[in-house]
């Protein structure tokens, strides 16, 4: 029982950065823009968040500035793809390469430094209930924030007028434009939001999860977040499920290493990546389902003709 609690709690911990980044990217993609630069925005968020939290002794300040940094990176992407009409796939790759270099440059001073642990929620009595207590009432604040974001995004996309407009732009930008909606402005904002969320996800890694800075510490999580959006078939609720499933995979391998399972640790470390591929294959196999659920204008450049 104790072991199970430990696994589930750490599953939630490792799923949270994926959930933050993926829910931001989901909004971006719903507006019809494919930003493959999640990894680059996350890693910049990680280094900036760590630097600010280290300098100010405030994790909150670290998260806030990391979100701004992620949004600035996303702004670069938005200018190139929405104004200069550059290829979205290539620009996203460029953003990742740039982000990895920039973060390594900025992070030089922070290597080897650590941050104090971030406090967990503790309600006397309730948080001590076996399993449910630590799992639901004993997490750090960002876990609740990430779940709140998913709920808010689900509500925004399906229940608000503005969310409907955003989705319509993602489905058919020419029709939305003809109806008078500001396609470029809304897409710009959606990309910025995605960047800010990626920044938060990165900062979570460096401020809460590890908590230290190492070069390239995102280790592919930005790409896994992108795969999660496909996995969710662009539905926020399924993102929640997908992120925790992945959290489970990455934690299961750590625990297996702890149990001295007779498999080399390198092979166990492959699990999250292999699981990503497997899940992608299972979801994508049904081409029709992907076609029906993916925003129809995803990745297509928009140029106002009139």
């Amino acid at each position: 029982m104790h072991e199970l609690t430990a696994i589930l709690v750490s599953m939630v911990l490792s799923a949270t950065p994926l959930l933050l980044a993926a829910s931001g990217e989901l909004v971006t993609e719903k507006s019809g823009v494919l930003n493959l630069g999640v990894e680059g925005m996350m890693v910049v968020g990680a280094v900036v968040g760590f630097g600010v939290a280290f300098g100010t002794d405030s994790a909150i300040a670290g998260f806030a500035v990391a979100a701004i940094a992620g949004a600035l990176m996303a702004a670069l992407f938005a200018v190139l793809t929405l104004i200069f009409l550059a290829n979205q796939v290539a620009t996203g790759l460029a953003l990742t390469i740039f982000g990895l270099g920039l973060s390594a440059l900025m992070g030089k001073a922070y290597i080897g430094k650590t941050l104090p642990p971030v406090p967990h929620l503790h309600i006397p009595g309730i948080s001590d209930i076996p399993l449910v207590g630590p799992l639901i009432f004993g997490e750090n604040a960002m876990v609740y924030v990430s779940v709140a974001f998913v709920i808010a995004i689900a509500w925004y996309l399906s229940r608000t007028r503005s969310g409907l407009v955003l989705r319509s732009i993602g489905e058919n930008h020419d029709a939305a434009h003809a109806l008078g909606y500001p396609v470029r402005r809304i897409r710009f904002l959606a990309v910025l939001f995605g960047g800010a969320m990626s920044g938060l996800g990165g900062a979570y890694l460096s401020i809460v999860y590890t908590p230290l800075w190492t070069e390239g510490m995102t280790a592919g999580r930005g790409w896994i977040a992108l795969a999660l959006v496909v996995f969710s078939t662009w539905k926020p609720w399924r993102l929640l499920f997908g992120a925790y499933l992945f959290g489970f995979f990455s934690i299961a391998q750590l625990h297996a290493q702890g149990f001295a399972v007779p498999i080399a640790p390198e092979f166990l470390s492959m699990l999250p990546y292999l699981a990503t591929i497997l899940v992608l294959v299972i979801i994508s196999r049904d081409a029709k389902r992907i076609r029906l659920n993916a925003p129809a204008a995803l990745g297509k450049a928009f140029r106002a003709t009139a």
Partner: protein
Amino acid sequence: MPRLRLEPRAQTSRLATYLSPVLAVVLTLIGAAVLFAILGRDPIRAYQAFFIDPISTFYGAGELGVKSAPLILCAIGLAIGFRANVWNIGAEGQFVLGGICGSYVALFYEPTLGPATLPVMFIAGALGGLAWAAIPALLKTQFNANEILTSLMLTYVAQLLLNYLVRGPWRNPQGYNFPQSKIFDGYAVIEPWISGTRIGLGTFLALIAAAGGWFLLSRSFLGYQIKVIGLTPAAAAYAGFSAKRVTWFCLLLSGGLAGIAGINEVAGPIGQLLPVISPGYGFTAIIVAFLGRLHPVGIVLAGLLIALSYLGGEAAQISLDLPVAVVGVFQGMLLFFLLACELLVRYRVQIGQAIAESAA
């Protein structure tokens, strides 16, 4: 307020096609000067340390050929895929697998194979990279899984596999527990062709690949199919071109070339298997492919330029105490400017109202 208007060109501008990469390089150099200034270095001195000092000797100039070889090999394959909208971004993993498979031959069969060792190593390396790229190809064509994500995930898997091998079964027993294989010897080593430099087989293979890539794209029916599929998939389907076949071809070709680059790196410049055998060649090759405008001749030039940035980064690390990460920032910046300048090729930028429109 004057507004910028974009008007699509009926035909892409030839002048802009050639000038846009040059403009991007110039803009990057300006950006680099700003970055040097921010880091507190004299830009002129930094330029010299970065771009002139490394190639001022005969050996240094030769290094340009050595460093550009893996970049060109990977970029040629990637560019052909990008032309067909096949986005293999896992060249880094295919490079690593090529290194692993070739090393297997070098470590265990050198005494038996004798003079045939090196050719067999290269075949094994090519097959290793090819097999690694066959996975995303299969998943894409059979299960519709996005090749960007699968090929990238496999890069992490390949890196972990390499780590396992050099720390476990292939570790040199006489290596004081360092995670590295024994140093290749005898027939498993690539000797330099030009004395005083390290230029050898790899540089030659890169040029062959570029020539082959040019022939494929400009002179063959398959190349024509690749271009049509990339530009107008609907027309390609109508003409009966098989998108699946082209996907397979592009992934296998780029994987094989990356695998060759991998074994060439291990058997040549490095000389043994280490936990890290590439400073990101597979990813940087994406930049090389775009900087070369997905054209083999352009890729050779772009490969030389990016190789210079690697050499400059190493030199500046010593002479200017600049972190090596600066190179990644430059490369990212270059790709951004390049993508932005691409606009000039496809559109005519006009300020204010278009004259044609007001006349009509």
